[in-house]
């Protein structure tokens, strides 16, 4: 598949955001993934050409960061946190259940091309453990049952809502946002999930506040 002119001009647009064009490489590779479904050789060569660096230099970057995939990713990337806290709270059990249910191993995609399953490292939502990410949206407080239902719903094309965000978009659509092209969904979802607010709620109940400002 050839990368079209619109994408080429968007890649240049990314590079132009920065005082030095090469700074655009990470978001440019996100855009390549949004168009190609993975980091392709053509994408690598195009980035190299635009930035005036070698394809080897671009490859070196593409292979360093775990979000860049060289094999096709499904419509929904399902990341199960199996770092210690989530693992202990149930992430290991969720990951095992999903591997069996989907009949795939780590970093593999279901035959229908819908789901790519991967165990991920800490995603900064430990107060919602165990956490599953779908296309990098939070699915908080999961169980093996809820996670199984989640992937079944995704495969069946049902609408799935992030527990702290919008309706789940496709992996390619997500990658486009990461490249710096907003999708207009910033206003979806709540400001904060329940765990983010527990301390604030106690402070309100108790009448606890920060001190009054002591200057004019």
């Amino acid at each position: 598949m050839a990368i079209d002119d619109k994408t080429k001009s968007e890649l240049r647009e990314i590079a132009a955001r920065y005082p030095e064009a090469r700074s655009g490489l990470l978001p440019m590779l996100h855009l390549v993934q949004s168009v190609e479904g993975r980091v392709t050789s053509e994408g690598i060569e195009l980035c190299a050409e635009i930035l005036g660096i070698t394809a080897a230099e671009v490859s070196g970057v593409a292979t360093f960061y775990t979000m860049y995939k060289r094999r096709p990713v499904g419509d929904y990337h399902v990341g199960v946190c199996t770092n210690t806290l989530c693992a202990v709270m149930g992430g290991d059990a969720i990951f095992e259940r999903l591997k069996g249910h989907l009949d795939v191993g780590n970093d593999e995609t279901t035959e229908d091309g819908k789901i790519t399953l991967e165990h991920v490292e800490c995603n900064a939502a430990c107060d919602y453990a165990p956490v599953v990410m779908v296309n990098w949206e939070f699915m908080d407080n999961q169980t093996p049952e809820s996670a199984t239902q989640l992937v079944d719903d995704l495969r069946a094309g049902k609408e799935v809502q992030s527990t702290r965000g919008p309706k789940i978009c496709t992996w390619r659509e997500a990658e486009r946002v990461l490249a710096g092209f907003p999708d207009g969904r910033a206003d979806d979802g709540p400001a904060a999930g329940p765990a983010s607010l527990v301390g604030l709620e106690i402070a309100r109940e108790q009448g606890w506040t920060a001190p009054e400002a002591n200057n004019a």
Partner: protein
Amino acid sequence: MPDTLTPVLTDNWGDDRAWTLASYAARGGYSALDKAFAMDPDAIIAAVKDSGLRGRGGAGFPTGMKWGFIPQDNPKPKYLVVNADESEPGTCKDIPLMMASPHTLVEGVIISSYAIRANKAFIYIRGEVLHVIRRVQNAVREAYDAGHLGKNIHGSGYDLDVVVHAGAGAYICGEETALLEGLEGRRGQPRLRPPFPAVAGLYASPTVINNVESIASVPSIIGNGASWFSSMGTEKSKGYGIFSLSGHVKKPGQYEAPLGITLRTLIDLAGGMREGHELKFWTPGGSSTPILTAEHLDVPLDFEGVGAAGSMLGTRALQIFDDTTCVVRAVLRWTEFYKHESCGKCTPCREGTWWLVQTLAALEKGQGSEADLDLLLDQCDNILGRSFCALADGAVSPISSSIQYFRDEYVAHLTHGGCPFDHTASTLFAAEGANA
């Protein structure tokens, strides 16, 4: 004496559409900006110094002092880079902050950039948090539209552009020089220092790199005064901070309090430990900070107190594990994380974390002998302080501290011929029998 909890950064998180400019402005947002523009940039640096604010990303370096290191006679452009690569296991404060109130961060970015005389700032957010990136992108756009960013902000004559930059999955990019490499479009491997970023950072120009929570604290310091900030906290650890409780407590979540609060108080606020279980071990500030136990419940959670207890305050990422949790399993998993995230630049870390996993994995399976514990500690000795950056120091923290407190549990794996724990018992759904 300030109240037990002091919501400042979290104060608006429950507001309707808290992430929007309208909501933020309705409670006085961006008013600190005008106060800042009426001040000389050096006076802002002085105020942040006077406040006693220390870096909230883990290391605790005084923020105002860091800003003061920027050589203002250097003709190159100055840059502010916000480290929003929150990835330290257990750490989960910057992500909810940016999701709920991204404008607090943006206002902090503007004041901080003005103070160090930067006209370009970058917010480097880890890529794996899509909705947070949407919210920050949106806040920056709203700030431009309202004239808080761009040319001649608020008629001050000061110009600032902000770029929101998504990372692509690399724990090491939380290390500030590795982050700069990522931001320059390279593999995220740490740089040799000196030169420090203050002198030669992004594009070899003077650069300040600060954590999200540090920068987000700046508007409140400028708005309310340095002495207001320093009226909270302890002698050398001033102000408030977000304490993130996760794991086996009844109400995990975010608790914003003056530095110096204890875990005993925090667990009380969180409704206590899970029913029928006791605290076994915890991390004060993420997996890179040596674990502590129930004997440390009354340690003041400030930089000095936790240091004196043999650990580090880190990011106040309090991961709480009860008596159902196998410490060997927990430590092995962290060690696998460090091995996976080692950038490969230096030998002690690249090879050392690999060996740590081999040795620990065998012990967890009950293979080997007690002498392997000494081997493990010897490996730690050959890594700690011998690596290029702090990642490998972090890798040995859980190992050496867990052997210090739970040597018997390692030995029990050997005598038992494997892990003596039922891992199902420590899950969230154990009580409900959901996994039976």
